[in-house]
């Protein structure tokens, strides 16, 4: 289409359309229907976004009436602070392990449970169930499950002859304990999405390839994985963003400790603003963090252009 040379210039319409012609009125009508949503977004998403950008250049403490302009001071203070790099490391460690484990486990469960029968339906339900338990409740329950002295998990491990693990109380295991809870909670959702993806792959491919002599592994590697890639991309992007922004479970289960070993970015932002009274500096951190997430999401999309196969 575009290769076709546009020889004849579009004829200028002899009569000018009236200002409120049909198309424009329709357009305005469409716009007016979208208006409430747009206003909502403007007020509750974009205004805070722009405002936190503004606050990041001030020394505001949330309660002082005066916001003193401090230029890039907040940014330089954060970028020269060792804690920033520590927190970044913790956040990425959490995110990478969480995303990989959830996706791999979710895919395996999806392959296992992708059968049409009542029994499998019930099993899927059990795997999915944690997803609709509130994170706050799950966290409170897990604090007790993981309690080193009185917890169910350690007493279970004890019967297997394994020494008590300190879980949330040890800087070495705290982050993994948090990841464990996160995986437990979200793997069911990943599984369901993967099952949806698996079912949208036409069976013809499998039939044709098995006629050509492909075994199960070949089929999985050359048909399932490539054709599942749009689903995988979706899950990688959404779980990457949500893992980067993990907060509730950290706040309730560890508060960022012990010894800062689970201090993720949002936790730090929150503590800085509401416990240390540094709203300005924490806004700067918000902006930096926003840019980091945006950059990584862009990177994921760029990579996906090469690797994701859309069918048809």
């Amino acid at each position, binding site marked *: 289409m575009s290769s076709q040379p546009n020889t004849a210039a579009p004829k200028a319409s002899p009569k000018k359309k009236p200002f409120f012609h049909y198309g424009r009125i329709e357009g305005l009508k469409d716009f007016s229907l979208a208006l409430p949503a747009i206003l909502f977004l403007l007020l509750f998403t974009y205004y805070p976004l722009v405002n936190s950008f503004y606050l990041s250049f001030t020394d505001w403490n949330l309660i002082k009436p005066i916001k003193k302009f401090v230029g890039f001071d907040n940014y330089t203070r954060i970028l020269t602070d060792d804690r920033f790099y520590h927190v970044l490391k913790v956040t990425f460690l959490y995110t990478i392990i969480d995303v990989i484990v959830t996706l791999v486990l979710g895919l395996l469960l999806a392959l296992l449970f992708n059968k049409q029968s009542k029994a499998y339906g019930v099993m899927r339900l059990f795997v999915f169930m944690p997803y609709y338990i509130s994170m706050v409740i799950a966290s409170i329950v897990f604090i007790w499950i993981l309690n080193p002295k009185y917890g169910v998990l350690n007493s279970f491990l004890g019967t297997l002859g394994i020494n008590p693990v300190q879980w949330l109380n040890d800087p070495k295991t705290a982050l993994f304990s948090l990841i464990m809870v996160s995986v437990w909670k979200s793997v069911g959702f990943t599984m369901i999405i993967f099952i949806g993806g698996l079912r949208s792959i036409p069976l013809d491919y499998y039939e044709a390839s098995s006629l050509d002599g492909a075994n199960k592994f070949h089929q999985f590697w050359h048909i399932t994985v490539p054709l599942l890639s749009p689903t995988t991309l979706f899950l990688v992007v959404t779980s990457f963003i949500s893992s980067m922004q993990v907060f509730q479970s950290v706040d309730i289960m560890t508060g960022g400790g*012990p010894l800062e070993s689970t201090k993720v970015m949002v936790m730090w932002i929150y503590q800085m603003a509401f416990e240390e009274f540094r709203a300005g500096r924490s806004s700067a951190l918000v902006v930096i963090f926003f840019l980091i997430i945006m950059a990584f999401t862009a990177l994921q999309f760029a990579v996906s252009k090469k690797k994701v196969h859309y069918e048809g």
Partner: protein
Amino acid sequence: MKKLWKPALAGALAVSVVSGCGGGSSDGEAAPPAPEDKTPVTIQYWHSHADAQLAGLDYMIKEFNKKYPWITVEPVFQGAYTDLQKKLLAAQAAKEVPAVANVEVSALPNFADSGVFMDLGPYIKRDKVDTNDFSKGMLKAYAYNDKQYGLPLIVSTSVFVYNKTMFDKEGVKPPQTWAEIDEFAKKLTQKNGNETTRYALSVPGWDTWYYDPWVVNGGGSILSADKKTATIDQPDSMKFMKKFKEWKDAGYMHIGYGKGASDVMRQMFYDGKIGMIQHTSALIKMYLENAKFEIGVSFLPGDKTRTSQIGGAGIAVMDLAPQNQKEAAWKFIEFMTSTEHNVKWAEYTGYLPTRKSAIDSEEGKTYFGKYPQYKAVFDNFDNVQPREQHPGYPEFSAFYKEALGKIVLENGEVEPLFKEAAKKMNDVLKDY
């Protein structure tokens, strides 16, 4: 929490609309004369009183209404102190504030510094409130830069709660000085090989409030007198930590650290696995009710000095509230902290009476007869000191808390860790 928050905000909004919406911020040199005005007014009280204290609060509000029938007090529970504090920040930023609120001691400097609370001085003077009747330390805890921003409402201090049954059986007495701890601990600790099965004592590591008095009692301090530099790395300030490490390494001492550590300590104490625990006096009542053994209470052992620090919360008036609400709010906090109901309030809440006149009254004597455990606290009434007052405290205290954590969890060395903490603290202090 969220559910409570919304109606609360709506309520605050409604109140301010009804009362004509206004900021009337007073410059506060002289209090307005006591108005004869008895037009009905509604004030909101944002508090952190846990379930166990609500009966007491109901009682107090009923009594208050008998005295001031035209003032309606709406109590709104806003969660723990830290939650309440965050909501107050938000309310202040939105300029929709309650009239009265609780304030936790360590948060006072920040709020006072930013003009969130009303200076009570002029009102105290106008109504001739005898502030000398409060313990000096308690009153000072709610003053900042020589202005009184709040009055002590629920006051606690950390004490050692001990298993008296166990102590009597083993023939030990709670140590009164640091020097006595070694012998005491040796007697009480039980070991199975290298593993301690019963600790002699436990000090909470999860909150600096518990070991700040140890710093002071060792002869040290957290900040220099001019509050410009950290002194936590001075020999006297680190003395307690070296002792803690000694006792911990010997298997005498248990130090809980991190979230959930409080529950563990409590449970170990109930199970007889710890002989004596440092905890807030506010929980003495809970221990009395739940332990299957006899409970004793002892004041913190001393070294160079023997003090403990004030905890709990005060009650303050929000400066942004409209004038008629402020007047009502002042009447409310004066009532809440008055001698008249002081002992009753203490009994209901499990916190300490704050008025000397109340303690000396007949009612006070009955109270001590009923709860002899509180005697240990009141014999040291004037040794209850305010906390380190600095707007940066929530931020910089995290550094020496972390140093203690590294010593407890990773067996770190005291001196290098405390030196590092002091360095980080100094970076923060530069901002003030």
